[in-house]
């Protein structure tokens, strides 16, 4: 496929020039996927797809336009490219716009083992079997598991080819596999709680066993049964690893170039300043082999990098693509991300909080009375001010022990203060996603309930 895409991309760049573009980029993406779902032991859904799209960005001087199409007929595509160039002529000339300095493009890039060479796409019957095993383990875990939203196995494969008119050209392939289960527990009063757990990797062999996925999902549903509301209070809050990772995502978003040059970030002008407790070091590393957020080159065709975003509590860098770097008079950090038909933006690659030395049990034991958060819902994070207020659920801690489940409460604070108040960091970092964290403890937040 890549050979086909290479000649298509090069043809598209030539066409853009012929239509009057002074510079251009072409991105070809082809993907196939399979999703297989079971519910209560029976097949519930099978979904398969094949897609191929081409994305373009064309420049006429400092003015640009982006476009995407699934149209591959050369005559149709020629007309499409010409219209895109016409759109670019109508855009405003932007002094920061343009391709990266050609000297910055890598001549070669590493093989990051993004594709599983031992497995192709998982076949439907095998995918259904894996999903069935996960759900069976969940349903069999406890008689109070009485219903299920099912279990699903997904398998995907994609190829990317990217080229620009300054001579950069590169491509890579990737795979992904994931398995999730969502059993429902019910108590004697009829109240229901869902539990969800999933495993995902680029390499099939790194997935958790289906039985383990099901058992964890069941445990998570069961421990929510009987959840109650609590009185409004201020108390320490312990975030489980997945919930802690959501805090890292908020920081990465505020540290990304586009938020900063728009003035829409609470981290504006904070480079080199203390933004977190001294025990906090957050890395962004797009070069890790086989990880979900890795890629050999970014959406501008520059090498991805490894760096500390926050070093010992100090904001050490921003996350920048070429455009936002120019706006901020800085250099790109190789964090350009782009959709097929979009201009590049900046985002984290593999983002993780460096683990500490406490076990999660020690962290919980350090809390006299406080909250262990395992669920967060809603969008109550204000990136401009750092104000934070989200719906929460989890377990109440009494005298260092998980005492009872709680729900219908919120936790609130401000991200600036919350990161300064990270008191303990766990040793339990696991590579479950592109953004991961160990367990963390924040010394105090407002918990709203009754």
């Amino acid at each position, binding site marked *: 496929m890549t050979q086909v895409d290479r000649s298509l991309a090069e043809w598209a760049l030539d066409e853009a020039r012929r239509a009057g573009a002074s510079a251009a980029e072409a991105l070809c993406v082809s993907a196939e996927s399979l999703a297989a779902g079971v519910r209560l032991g*029976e*097949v*519930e*859904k*099978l*979904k*398969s*797809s*094949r*897609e*191929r*799209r081409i994305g373009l960005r064309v420049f006429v001087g400092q003015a*640009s*336009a982006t*476009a*995407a199409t*699934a*149209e591959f007929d050369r005559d149709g595509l020629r007309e499409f490219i010409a219209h*895109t160039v016409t*759109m*670019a002529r*109508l*855009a*405003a000339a*932007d002094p920061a*716009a343009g391709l990266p300095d050609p000297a910055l493009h890598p001549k070669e890039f590493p093989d990051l083992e993004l594709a599983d060479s031992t497995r192709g796409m998982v076949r439907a019957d095998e995918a259904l079997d894996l999903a069935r095993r996960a759900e069976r383990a969940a349903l069999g875990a406890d008689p109070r598991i009485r*219903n299920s*939203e099912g279990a699903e196995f997904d398998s995907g494969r994609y190829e990317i080819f990217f080229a620009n008119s300054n001579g950069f050209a590169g491509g890579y392939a990737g795979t992904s596999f994931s398995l999730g289960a969502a059993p429902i527990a019910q108590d004697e009063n009829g*109240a*229901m*709680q*869902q539990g969800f757990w999933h495993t995902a990797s680029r390499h099939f062999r790194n997935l958790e066993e289906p039985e383990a996925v099901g058992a964890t999902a069941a445990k998570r549903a069961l421990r929510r049964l009987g*959840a109650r509301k609590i009185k*409004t*209070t*201020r108390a320490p809050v312990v975030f489980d690893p997945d919930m802690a990772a959501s805090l890292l995502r908020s920081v990465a978003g505020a540290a990304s170039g586009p938020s900063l040059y*728009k*003035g*829409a970030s609470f981290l504006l002008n904070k480079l080199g300043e203390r933004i977190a407790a001294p025990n906090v070091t957050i890395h962004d590393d797009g070069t890790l082999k086989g990880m979900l957020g890795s890629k050999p080159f970014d959406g501008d065709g520059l090498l991805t990098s490894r760096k500390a975003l926050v070093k010992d509590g100090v904001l050490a860098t921003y996350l920048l693509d070429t455009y936002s770097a120019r706006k901020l008079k800085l250099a790109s950090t190789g964090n350009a991300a782009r959709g097929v*038909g979009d*201009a590049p933006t900046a985002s984290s690659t593999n983002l993780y909080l460096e683990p500490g030395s406490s076990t999660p049990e020690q962290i919980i034991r350090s809390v006299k009375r406080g909250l262990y958060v395992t669920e967060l*819902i*809603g*969008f*109550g994070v204000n990136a*401009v001010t750092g*104000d934070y*207020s*989200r*719906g929460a659920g989890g377990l109440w801690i009494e005298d260092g022990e998980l005492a009872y489940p709680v*729900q*219908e*409460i*919120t936790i*609130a604070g*401000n991200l600036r203060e919350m990161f300064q108040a990270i008191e303990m960091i766990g040793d339990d970092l696991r590579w479950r996603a592109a953004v991961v964290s160990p367990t963390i403890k924040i010394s105090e937040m*407002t*918990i*709203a309930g*009754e």
Partner: protein
Amino acid sequence: MANDLVQPEKFFLNRFGMNESAFERILGSALERKADYADLYFEHRSAEGLGLEESMVNHTSKSVAHGVGVRVCAEDRTGYAYSDEVTIDRMRMAAEAARAIADQRSGAIAPVAVGNRVARHELYALESTPLEIPLEERARLLRQIDEMARAADPRIRNVMASFAAERKLVMVVTSEGRIAADIQPLCRLNVSVIADDGKSRQAGSFGGGGRVEWKYFFENDRWREYVRHAVHQALINLDAVDAPAGEMVVVLGNGWPGILLHEAIGHGLEGDFNRKGVSAFSGRIGQRVASELCTVVDDGTIANRRGSLNVDDEGTPTSRTVLIENGVLRGYLQDRMNARLMKMAPTGNGRRESFAHSPMPRMTNTFMLAGEATPEEIIKSVKRGLYAVSFGGGQVDITNGKFVFSASEAYLIEDGQVTRPVKGATLIGDGPDVLTRVSMVGDDLALDSGIGTCGKDGQSVPVGVGLPTIRIDGITVGGTRA
């Protein structure tokens, strides 16, 4: 193209070289095993976007996407396959992949006969869509927005404005012989601003649109209203004090705060969750779930609305469904599969994001009918509480019924008066319980301005909400001031 606009069905037949006998063969192949139902969904979507930042219209984009999805349903199982290559061969391959869901071979296959054209509503027969307006004219509006916002107050430091327009042609062909086709225009204008007074920085935003023509944004000074709202929200929040924490009386303003209904009620009444018995509302039809002041409907038939459709994405004409009538739960939102399995009638709520997705029960425009109180009476009735007039997003846990929605503009009510602005805070409640606490319903029902997008199972679809001013006698407000 002009003729295709009149007859979307012809567009697909001509463009992809299809005909009715080809549909019949492919649907017949899809049903070759023991399946109940199959359908084909053709889509062609073209979209253009313009964006302004730092007083420059420096972002322009366009996209064209087309494809076909083949679905096979057997009892409660769904097989789905799609391709962005719309050819007979590809569709046959997709039909073979999709029918794998039905495992036994069937006896005699009833032949599929296609030709029953579905009568659709005419809710958005536009003379022209904004895509036909010259790009330069669209860009000019964004520059005018920038000028107006910056001139409004010296504390406005940055303005972002965008205009997005699309035109979607769809056609559904079913194994029951129905053909439904539609042209679905949609557009949205958005304004967001950053205000800075040297001490703090705040964002404000407002937008709107629908299945409307370009002139819509100029009627009643509409685009200027958007700018005024965005600027007001940012400036008000500069002076906001910390929000209170805990349970209190909350008055929701009219219009967009109807997102409460979407999260607290709407999702929990979607047919799929109730067929599976996993919703906090499962099995509760006929029971009281709200105060008798509350009547809530979902209506996909309101002209030019963002959440409206002439036919849903399974070819069923949309309708008005009463969800709660005077406090009593009356109905669910259904697509064809869940309606069939629950032995209910489809309600025209089978929707999908694109040809790459299988349809599910989804909301259209969800709102509460007006009551009799004036908004002033409602505010005056509150000794101490929160008055929330604008919201960001919301979310719900279907199974335990807990939902949140986050205020982006809110004020304290003290002794019957709206006083200081407070910082945004998340409100959390229980779906089957929250409307039982509604003690006053205003006479000022308004629908939102046309900005809603709902996400479910990875699929986004445009929706609308609406609400009169209401008083809720207790809901948890997630501020920082304990």
